[in-house]
C-alpha cells in the first residue's frame, strides 16, 4: 500500500519542486529581491520532496485508520494543513542582512500549496490503479 503512496509522493514532490523553482525565479526577477540564502534550488527541492513524502505517510495512515470517506477526510486535512502553514512565512524573522522581508511571504505562501496541489493533480492516476 505504502509503495503506491510513496511513488505518488515522489512524483508529486518532483512536480511541486519544478513549480516552486519556476515560481521563485519569476517572483525574484519581478521584484528584484534576493532570498537565495533561504530559498534556493536545494531548499525548494528538499522542502517539496519532504512535504510530499509526509503527505504519502499521511495518506497511508488515513487509508489504514479511516475506513469510510477516506479521500474526503484526507483532502480536507491536507487543505487545512496547507492553509495553516501560512503562519510560518508571515511570522518568521529573517536575518537582518536580507533586504525587503516584506516580500518574503509573497514568495513562500504560494509555494506552501504546491505539494498538495501536485498530490491532487496526479491523484486520479494513482487512485485508478
Amino acid at each position, binding site marked *: 500500500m505504502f509503495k503506491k503512496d510513496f511513488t505518488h509522493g515522489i512524483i508529486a514532490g518532483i512536480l511541486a519542486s519544478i513549480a516552486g523553482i519556476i515560481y521563485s525565479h519569476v517572483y525574484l526577477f519581478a521584484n528584484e529581491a534576493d532570498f537565495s540564502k533561504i530559498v534556493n534550488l536545494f531548499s525548494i527541492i528538499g522542502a517539496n520532496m519532504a512535504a510530499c513524502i509526509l503527505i504519502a505517510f499521511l495518506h497511508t495512515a488515513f487509508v489504514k485508520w479511516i475506513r469510510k470517506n477516506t479521500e474526503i477526510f484526507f483532502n480536507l486535512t491536507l487543505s487545512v494543513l496547507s492553509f495553516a502553514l501560512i503562519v510560518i512565512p*508571515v*511570522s*518568521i*524573522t*529573517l*536575518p*537582518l542582512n*536580507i*533586504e*525587503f*522581508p*516584506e*516580500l*518574503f*511571504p509573497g514568495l513562500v505562501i504560494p509555494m506552501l500549496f504546491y505539494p498538495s496541489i501536485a498530490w491532487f493533480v496526479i491523484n486520479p492516476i494513482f487512485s485508478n490503479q
Partner: protein
Amino acid sequence: MKRHFYAFAAIFIFFASAFTVFQSVDWKIADSYSIKFDGGDPSGEFKGLKGSISFDPNNLKASRFDVSIEVATINTGNGMKNTHAKSEKWLDAEKYPLISFTSKEITKVASGYEAKGTLNMHGVQKDITLPFTFDKDIFTGSISVNRMDYNINTAEPNHGAQIMKVDIQVPVTK
C-alpha cells in the same frame, strides 16, 4: 603707518591661525555602519544614516554630531513587524520621517567620550548622553531608549518592549 600695517597683519594672521587650530576634523560616514536596536521583541536595525560628524579628540570643543536616520528604513527581519513599526500607532514614519541627534557638548571620560545632546524622535525632543569610543576611525556607542519617553504607543505599554538597547557602530573616513 607702514610699521603699524605689519603689526596688524601679524596679529590678524596669528588669530586666523588660531581659528584653524580650533577647527575640528570632518568625517564622512562609511556605508558599513550599523544601528541596531534590541528589545527582545522586537529587535532590528535602521539604515539611512546621514549628517555631519566633526570630531577631533584633541579639540572636543569644536567637535559636533548632527546626524539622523530614516524611520522608514527600519528592518526587524519581518515584513509585518516593519509595517507595524512604521505605522501611525508606533513610529509614524510618515509624520516623523527622521530620528535625529544633535550634540551640544562632547567631553572626555574614563571609558572614552560622552556626547550630550538632543535626541529628536516621534516629535519629542529629549536631552540624552551618548557614551562612545573612537578607535581606528570607528565610532562605537550604546544607549538605552525608553519608547514611553517619546510617546510611542503609550496606550499599550506592555505591547512589545518599552526599553530598547541601541548599539551604534559608525566607521568613518576623512
